[in-house]
């Protein structure tokens, strides 16, 4: 072990060394911005200096050739610096206005859509899926690629009422966050237990404790220590699966997709809001998940048509009311839409405020 190198616990790197010089010079001194066209942000500093940031979509899961290609573009047009957004879009900071259009042309020519700013549908929050995770019910890269293909026109334009932040998650743990629209996994059958493996692989008390509805109890099956699930109680959440992989929750048919609407973390106008269930039972159909995509597009279509400028999905539905949302989107309303945990009494209509 003598030759092992101890780590340098340097933590978060200082960004100044990697920051575009124009941003470094005007750090904390920005005055205002506007968007001359979709995909371009124009920031003006107190000093009077100006910068144009050109935003382009990426596949997030990039091969190093793609990264190098983006570096080439950055060197040619943006003085050798780039910025990644929280949504895996890449931004090139341009100080010479005349380079903006050529940069855009170059990006488009190389297959990187320019857009995602302002009231567009920006890149979808991306998770791992079948490519890497140990618990996914669906893929992530493929879902995102399929949806972004469908939404490409809305990425490169700014024609939505306000910005649209979509998230996907590949299991019910939901690493993708709240979204204006969220496409999530929803299992509909209790886990099938591979009893032969439980004894060796799973710490049984841990698994029992993990179940949110206390549906799991230790049991002896075929003479071996295992677990059993009270299928009446089980809500098919899959929380038992990560700590105990023999509790197979993923199912090619019964792991379905569900769609949620109106999540919002920003404080603009209303307070942050959780997204709400609007559709479920959607088949998990690779490679292009067309059924889910159709619903997403329908919702976006109605929102685009009916919402006022600056209304996020949540603001819009709040204005028109949920009954009308279901009417306009033609999605069925079911008993599953009514929440049922204890605090859910706060979600019931305790008034005569009703739209007809």
């Amino acid at each position, binding site marked *: 072990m003598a030759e092992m190198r101890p780590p340098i616990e340097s933590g978060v790197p200082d960004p100044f060394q990697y920051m575009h010089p124009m941003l470094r010079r005007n750090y904390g001194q920005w005055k205002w911005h506007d968007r001359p066209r979709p995909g371009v942000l124009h920031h003006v500093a107190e000093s009077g200096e100006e910068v144009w940031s050109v935003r382009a979509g990426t596949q997030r899961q990039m091969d190093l050739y793609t990264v190098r290609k983006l570096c080439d573009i950055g060197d040619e047009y943006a003085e050798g610096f780039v910025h990644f957004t929280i949504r895996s879009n890449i931004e090139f900071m341009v100080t010479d206005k005349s380079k903006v259009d050529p940069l855009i042309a170059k990006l488009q020519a190389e297959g990187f859509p320019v857009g995602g700013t302002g009231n567009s549908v920006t890149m979808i929050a991306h998770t791992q899926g079948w490519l890497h995770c140990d618990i996914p019910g669906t893929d992530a890269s493929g879902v995102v690629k399929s949806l972004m293909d469908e939404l490409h026109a809305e990425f490169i334009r700014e024609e939505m009422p306000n910005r649209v932040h979509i998230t996907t998650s590949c299991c019910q743990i939901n690493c993708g966050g709240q979204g204006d629209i969220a496409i999530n996994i929803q299992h509909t059958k209790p886990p099938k237990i591979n009893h032969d493996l439980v004894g060796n692989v799973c710490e049984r008390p841990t698994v029992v404790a993990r179940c949110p509805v206390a549906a799991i109890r230790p049991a002896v099956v075929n003479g071996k220590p295992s677990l059993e699930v009270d299928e009446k109680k089980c809500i098919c959440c899959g929380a038992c699966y990560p700590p105990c992989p023999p509790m197979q929750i993923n199912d090619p048919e019964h792991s379905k997709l*569900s769609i949620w609407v109106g999540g919002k973390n920003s404080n603009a106008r209303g307070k942050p809001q959780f997204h709400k269930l609007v559709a479920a039972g959607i088949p998990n159909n690779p490679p292009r998940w067309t059924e889910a995509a159709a619903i997403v597009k329908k919702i976006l279509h109605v929102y685009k048509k009916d919402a006022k400028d600056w209304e996020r999905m949540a603001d819009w539905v709040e204005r028109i009311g*949920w009954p009308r949302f279901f009417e306009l989107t033609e999605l069925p309303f079911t008993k599953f839409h009514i929440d049922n*945990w204890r605090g859910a009494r706060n979600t019931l209509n305790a008034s005569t405020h009703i739209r007809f």
Partner: protein
Amino acid sequence: MAKQIHDTPMLDQLESGPWPSFVTGLKRLAKDNDMMVDLLGQLEHSYETRKGFWKGGTVGVFGYGGGIIPRFSEVASKFPDSAEFHTLRIQPPAGMHYSTAVLRQMCDVWEKHGSGLVAFHGQSGDIMFQGIRTDKVQAAFDEFNEMGFDLGGAGPAVRTSMSCIGHARCEQSCYDTARAHRDIVNTFMDDMHRPALPYKFKFKFSGCPNDCMNSVQRADMAVIGTWCDDMQVDQAEVKAFVASRGRQYVLDNVTTRCPTKCIRLKDDDTLDVDNRNCVRCMHCINVMTKALKPGKDRGVTVLIGGKRTLKIGDLFGTVVVPFMKLESQEDMDRLREIAQNTIDFFAENALEHERTGEMIDRIGLVNFLEGIGLEVDPRMIDYPRVSSYVRMDGWDEEAAKWNERKAG
């Protein structure tokens, strides 16, 4: 009579001041009524010790299991003449109308048998004849009963109900509150007079969403008037209102107060209502009583589960019927059926001493709706579920149900 009155220095302080004094009233009664002499004595004793001295017991009338609130004094040795001080709960006429003739008749009966103290009304709506000895209860009741009055509810029973003045004197009234009150509540006289439910069950009837009966919070079943077509707007009266108060007044007090901002003052001083977004809150109508009115297609919203504090904290009722007409006999029968289903389900499924609201909180609204045979509707919720912790097999069947309903 005319037993010596006790010293009541603390109560005496409640004889001054501009509000009518119950102490003065009690003292007036005590002049001819020994029960009231000792009642005053016991009350003063409570004021001194800051403690109550009544305990319950069992007192009733022939044929009924409830309706009397029995009170026996724990300090009867000191105040023997008010050792028993029961209350007769008597149901009021729907809407609480009285002729002076009937009031006088009541006073006479009460003078004869009871203390002479009466409350118009208890918080549940009963006329409360307060202060009577056990041996006189039956006679007093018989006389009231002969007059056309009946005992109200007490214990785990359907309770006395209230309806607002509604149709009798209110232009906002969207259904015949008095009729509904009588038609519905009178169906449940057996459940009122022979307490056998898990716990109390209250109806309340308000003619419009102003809810002057506080039904949303104080009734297990609240029946509240509303309308489903367009609000009635008399634009000439709107203009007159704008002319007299000014545009700014209308903007400040009407349009900007609309919860959905669906009412707009136009440049020509008329109002434009986006009726699809009006949530029938009543505010604009309340301000402009002459110019605005509920629509013509009227009916009720029904909410279940309101109650006060015990066990899980206060609850509001929750919408189970977003809208139904309440005009024809069939409409009324349908409402009665919903009430009956609710009470049956409550009787079978509530835990002992559990109100409808607590039961729904425990079993979930959906199970309750299924139990009473009503269909889910997005108007029953403020917003759809945020928690993914639910088992959704059966989605397709549920979706199909909705699609059928929409098609049908």
